[in-house]
């Protein structure tokens, strides 16, 4: 009887693990109700593997769609939360602590961090690695008026992701003045 119960428990645990959508590289996002409370603009996107497959099946053979299709082919989920506020300091930065804690341990490693005291903003990019293989990406960006959290589950090509901006009929969302100052080396005669 005891043995049978143990087997049942093991089977149940196995099933629970098999059907559970939670992956190590998927952040456990806290309740962002307090963050969204004072926001004037909220973007909340949750695309799991099934939705990614559905979206991919509906993409055309055009260049842009082809590019997205190849980018999302190895992804298991994309989760984006973005809050924009009408005035400075409208949110409590400590609300992001639980996310920061998750990103500071385990298989997450910080790839890049940029902080500007003048603008009161900081951006950090984290990569989830399983050995040498990247398996997830997290971007946490917080400024006085905006908080954005991006979590991509699955192997992602960062360079390919960077080049996506300004495509799909959406204008290039340049941020700050540096972008305008950046020039490409050009030979002139």
């Amino acid at each position, binding site marked *: 009887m005891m043995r049978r119960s143990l087997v049942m428990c093991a089977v149940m645990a196995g099933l629970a693990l098999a059907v559970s959508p939670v992956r190590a590289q998927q952040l456990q996002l806290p309740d962002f109700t307090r963050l969204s409370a004072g926001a004037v603009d909220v*973007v909340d*996107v949750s*695309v799991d593997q099934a*939705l*990614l497959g*559905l*979206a991919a*099946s*509906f*993409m055309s053979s055009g260049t842009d769609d082809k590019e*997205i299709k190849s*980018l*999302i082919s190895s992804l298991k989920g*994309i*989760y*984006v939360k*973005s809050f924009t506020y009408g005035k400075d300091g409208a949110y409590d930065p400590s609300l992001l602590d639980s996310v920061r804690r998750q990103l500071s341990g385990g298989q997450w490693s910080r790839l*890049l961090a*940029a902080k*500007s005291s003048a603008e009161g903003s900081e*951006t*950090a*990019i984290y990569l989830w690695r399983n050995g040498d293989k990247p398996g997830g*990406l997290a*971007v946490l*960006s917080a400024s006085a008026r905006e908080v*954005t959290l*991006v979590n*991509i589950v699955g192997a992602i090509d*960062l360079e390919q*992701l*960077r*080049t*996506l*901006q300004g495509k*799909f009929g*959406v204008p290039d*969302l340049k*941020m*700050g003045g*540096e*972008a305008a*100052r*950046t*020039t*490409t*080396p*050009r*030979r*002139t*005669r």
Partner: protein
Amino acid sequence: MNPDARLRNALAPVDPPEGFAHRVRARVAREAGPMPAAASRRTSRWLAIAAMVTAVLLGPLAFREYESRREALAARAQVVLALQIASRELNAAHRRVVRPVVTTLAPDGDGVSGKAGRP
């Protein structure tokens, strides 16, 4: 009777019986006329049943097709939006850590010196 005369006799024109033309016209008019009411009702009933069965069978399929198309379009829009935001954040962070490339034209006109580095 010689064969020639017999043949002429056999092929001689014969007038149709009395009222033949009238009977033929009457029959033609009868057969080309409207279908009997009972047959017409039967045909339209079957047509209605066929239309109903087609609608019952194909309706849900068409609706499901429409729904999945709508869901796929919404999913595609979400994916594009999510990738746009991710790409924007990635570029913003990249711009903050990489100093912009400075381009200057060399005096001889064909040289370019680009300097890039960390701030």
